[in-house]
């Protein structure tokens, strides 16, 4: 019926749709609908099925992803170039799906046992993941903006999911308000960019930014304001303040999700904008990112040293980690063309690694807090004596975050270093030094946690073993194995990250 309407519409060109390329998103969307129906048509006591459906759906979406990965031919470019399915987007979609799946795993017990709305929880989670998948293919300001809202708005509500607790709703409120403020700034910037270039397509914007328009101050304001919206998402200083408060107040599985998936989505958008849109003014982006990266690492680490609550400490740690990821952008556009490739692949690599490791750490935190019921680091004392597996897993994650071999983090950091050194610029070396100093500082608090786990006494002397539900065991197991295996064989992920290049060539 629609077809006849379309046919009747004069001058309307029916878009050519490559259904295969859209399949991963469609699978997630179908899962969304299924979970919605399950939520509507089941009784309260069988709402848990929602989590199973969500998990299966997320894993199922990997199938079309794989078929797309092995598909021959050029990357699919749909809707006039606004939606591109290239290797970059495939790698990141896989990342989001896996992160989403692990989030479902760590959520299932927490959400089922707490006084939460269960079905809607997974619904919003799926909606957010849907947004993330869309944003990794989006090559158009409007699509980026809408996908960005798609992934953000559900997380605002998820952050407020502990709505009966004052801190719970406070977390949601802060996240929401800062998010909307940042959206405002971002939109203003986007409007300036659109105004100057007359297009919302990143490829065309890239061409204009590289041309005359790019040299005007208004373009600089446009670029910076646009990036602010995403820098808020990755919690870069000075747009980071929401993170600790929200992380502390939100349900811990949501915190895990925010600290990895949501943050990665922010980075994905930044990468796309910077590489495809704003590459022509790399000379502006470089110092800007340098300032932010150094400030973010330093501030995050400094405050993290002072934290006594583990979730809050991890919040600042993830602020600092965001700073690390930003570091290579401080040499963007410098050096040769393969420097740009190196920057891109090192950042993607770090995102992959960081996502797995941080999710694992949060899975442990959730497992432990089921027992201790407290977020204070002191309550972790002597964890090793009664939950050795959890303590050792946590140690692995902490090592990975601190960049100590053989856990995978060292390799990721090494890649970042290589990227900045390769560019051979003063700013790059300065950023490298700042990064090195900061990675030492960060050990201060990572090792502090280790010391508590291994060396302190059990606070209440209660050393009955921790009972960890199977879903959490799976989450910890998957992440810890990934952390170690990739740590020993970094080539596994290195390849993936190397292939994660944009279909569009850089700097056009």
């Amino acid at each position: 019926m629609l077809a006849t309407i379309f046919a009747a519409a004069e001058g309307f060109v029916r878009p050519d749709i490559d259904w295969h390329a859209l399949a991963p998103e469609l699978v997630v969307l179908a899962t969304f609908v299924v979970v919605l129906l399950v939520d509507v048509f089941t009784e309260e006591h069988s709402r848990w099925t929602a989590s199973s459906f969500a998990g299966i759906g997320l894993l199922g979406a990997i199938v079309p992803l794989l078929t797309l990965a092995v598909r021959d031919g050029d990357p699919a470019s749909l809707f006039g170039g606004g939606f591109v399915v290239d290797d970059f987007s495939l790698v990141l979609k896989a990342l989001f799906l896996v992160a989403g799946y692990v989030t479902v795993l760590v959520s299932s017990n927490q959400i089922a046992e707490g006084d939460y709305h269960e079905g809607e929880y997974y619904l919003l989670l799926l909606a957010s993941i849907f947004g993330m998948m869309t944003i990794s293919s989006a090559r158009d300001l409007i699509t980026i903006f809408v996908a960005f809202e798609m992934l953000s708005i559900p997380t605002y509500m998820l952050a407020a999911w502990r709505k009966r607790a004052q801190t719970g709703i406070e977390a949601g409120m802060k996240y929401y308000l800062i998010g909307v403020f940042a959206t405002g700034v971002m939109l203003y910037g986007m409007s300036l960019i659109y105004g100057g270039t007359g297009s919302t397509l990143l490829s065309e914007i890239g061409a204009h930014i590289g041309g005359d328009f790019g040299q005007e101050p208004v373009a600089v304001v446009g670029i910076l304001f646009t990036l602010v919206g995403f820098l808020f998402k990755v919690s870069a200083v000075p747009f980071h303040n929401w993170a600790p408060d929200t992380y502390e107040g939100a349900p811990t599985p949501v915190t895990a999700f925010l600290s990895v998936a949501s943050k990665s989505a922010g980075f994905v958008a930044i990468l796309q904008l910077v590489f495809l849109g704003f590459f022509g003014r790399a000379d502006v982006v470089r110092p800007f990112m340098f300032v932010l990266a150094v400030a973010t690492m330093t501030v995050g680490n400094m405050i993290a040293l002072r934290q006594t609550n583990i979730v809050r400490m991890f919040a600042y740690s993830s602020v600092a980690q965001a700073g690390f990821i930003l570091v290579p952008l401080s040499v963007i556009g410098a050096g040769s063309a393969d420097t740009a490739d190196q920057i891109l692949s090192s950042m993607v690599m770090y995102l992959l690694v960081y996502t797995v490791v941080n999710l694992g750490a949060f899975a442990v935190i959730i497992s432990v807090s089921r027992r201790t019921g407290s977020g204070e680091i002191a309550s972790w004392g002597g964890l090793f004596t009664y939950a050795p597996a959890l303590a050792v897993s946590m140690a692995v994650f902490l090592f990975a975050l601190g960049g100590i071999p053989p856990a995978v983090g060292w390799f990721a950091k090494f890649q970042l270093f290589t990227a900045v050194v390769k560019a051979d610029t003063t700013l790059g070396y300065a950023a490298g030094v700042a990064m090195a100093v900061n990675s030492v500082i960060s050990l201060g608090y990572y090792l502090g946690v280790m010391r508590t786990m291994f060396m302190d006494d059990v606070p209440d002397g209660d050393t009955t073993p921790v009972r960890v539900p199977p879903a959490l065991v799976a989450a910890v197991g998957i992440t810890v194995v990934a952390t170690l295996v990739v740590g020993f064989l970094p080539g596994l992920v290195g390849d993936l990250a190397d292939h994660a290049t944009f279909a569009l060539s850089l700097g056009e």
Partner: protein
Amino acid sequence: MLSHAWLIPLIPAISFVAILAVGKKLPRGGSEIGIASVAIIFVMSLGVAAGWIGRVNNPPVVHHDTGTEHVVEGDEHGEEAPADEHGEEPAAEDEGHAATAFEDSVSFAAAAPGSASAPAAAEGEEHHETPPVVRDITWFDNGTMQVKVGTMIDGLSTLMLVVVTLISLLVHVFSTDYVAGDRRYTHYFAFLSLFTASMLFYVVSSSTLQMIVGWELVGLCSFALIGHWWEEKPNSDAALKAFLVNRVGDIGLLCGMIVLFFAAGRTFDIIQINELANAGEIRHFLLLVGSLSLMTAVMSKSGQFILHTWLPDAMAGPTPVSALIHAATMVVAGIYMIARLYGVFFNGLSIGTSNINVMAVVGAVTLLFGGLLAFVQNDIKKVLAYSTVSQLGYMVMALGVGAWTAGIFHLFTHALFKACLFLGAGSLAHHIHSFDMKEDMGGLRKVMPKTFWTFMLGTGALVAVPPLAGFWSKDEILAGAQQLGGDGGYPLMLIMGTLGAAVTGAYMTRAIWYVFFGERRGASATHDMHENGPRITVPLMILAAGAVLAGFTNIPKTDNFALSWVPDGWTLRFEHFIEPTGAYFPGGLESFAHPEFNLVLAVVSTAVGLTGVLLAYLWYWKGLGPHGLTDRNRFARGGYKILENKYGLDVLYVDWIAGATKGPIAKAANWTNQNVIDGVVNLVGTSVRKSGEFVYRYIDQGVVDGAVNASGAAADGSGEILRKAQTGKVQTYGAYLFLGAAILAAIFVIAV
């Protein structure tokens, strides 16, 4: 065996897992697995050594650019016959065959330098080119670079394999008695295994990236072992301190390795990096930056002044672990890295042509300061720890002046006698659980004779009493400082090294006095002291034997009458087998400069060392304080050359002015003798103590620790200020956001 060296780190790694998995269920708590695995790899290391010796004696044919075949000459005078069939030339083909079966590559990095220069016959020793056996597989390949991991066996790594496995084996055996009944007995052995595995993984590295990983693993394991008794806060503090100080050096390591990576055209291959550095194909500036960065890493890992502070604190760990750390593993990792990447350091720091350079200075300062510090410690383990610092200083200095073989030779001898001393200290403290020499020891020589004698031999070797091991290696280092480098050698290093010998003698004598002589005090008086069982004493005896004999592996080859009777086949065996040949080592086929034996120097340095012993002997055995002036006068008369000179002056004074005013001047001379010279002697004695204490209290504990603490506090403080900015009010956050965006935009609009 040479190309199967990868098994050597693997076995203890497996043992680590096995002990963790099943150790608790075994009758001996997993220690049997550890000992068995280390014994196996020790035997395997001997096999590697035999193979290597065979390979040096019958080097594989190397084709040079000119196409001429290098004539293979068997060295008939080999100390040990090539026992292992794998090591010989045909084995190369075997290995190649095995390698293809594994689908990886075996390359004998056939160093073929452009020059087909004939081996220079310096010192009469021919240097055949014996390429190292490299076997590696691609670890990962990320498009722009290919990183390999594998084993590289040459003399240096062979030596390290033997030393590490030997010490580790003895430490394992020793530990079964020493930590018996410990509640983390199984964990302890598991980590010993892992520690050994990491160190072995590190020493067989074929790429710098692998070295980084091994280096970090070693640090990690030492962290776990130093903090073995973490229940006591100082122990866990010490572990953390060790770890954090080492991380400072790790930045240097990372920076240095990355610089080298790019400087050498994107490669991690050790041989390639060295070859390029030697061939002058890397800009000198880059080499300098690289070697300075790596030097930071060495300073932290090998406890060089000013990053040595963690090392004495690391005594908090169980004593066998200290022995392992100090003799064979952790701290020599830095020395090993210098030796391994010697092409970089040698060219980067211009070692061959300068009279002073960073590495030599760091080493020299460390050896003197370390020794002074050892002088004021009351804890026997801390004496030994500072002694290690000082001895590592010797090694770094040796490498810094270009005496590669001497440095590594000292590493080898030091490993034996220092392990002996540490285990001896463990043996002493096994019953009383105290290491305080002043409070809890004394007069132990009668009750623990085996410990006493082995300790004495270890001390003798450390103090460089001829002909014990330390004498030979220290003498070679000093000869290196005298003769190598640019014109005039390294005079400053020579002086400081010689002074260091005196200090060494003094502090060890003092330690011996407190521990073995005098009255039994404190815990040792109240305890029923008796000699320990064979699991403790036998390792001690083996190590003591090593401390006596190890020096003979590198008897200098000289025409000097003192040693000219030694047959050629017995001299310089160590240098012959251990020192690398080929383009990846400075000098390449051309002979690398070696110092010659210098009898005067040997005698003088030994005399200086023994003077230290004597001074301390007189100081402690004969006592001070209440004795009258004449006593001290005799003390002065007995020992000091400087005093004799004074007397000479005295005589001169008297003779010159004899005829004129005999009386008053003679009285004055006498007064001078009584007061000034005694004063000088006193001053020397006390000022050594004072400066030691000063350095310890103010520089070591004050400045360095203070700086560490202050930077920590500064970080904390700024953290606190930044934390205040987190007001909890969302609109304040909003203000930061908008203001941040506006100000950044303003700055960039104006500036860009």
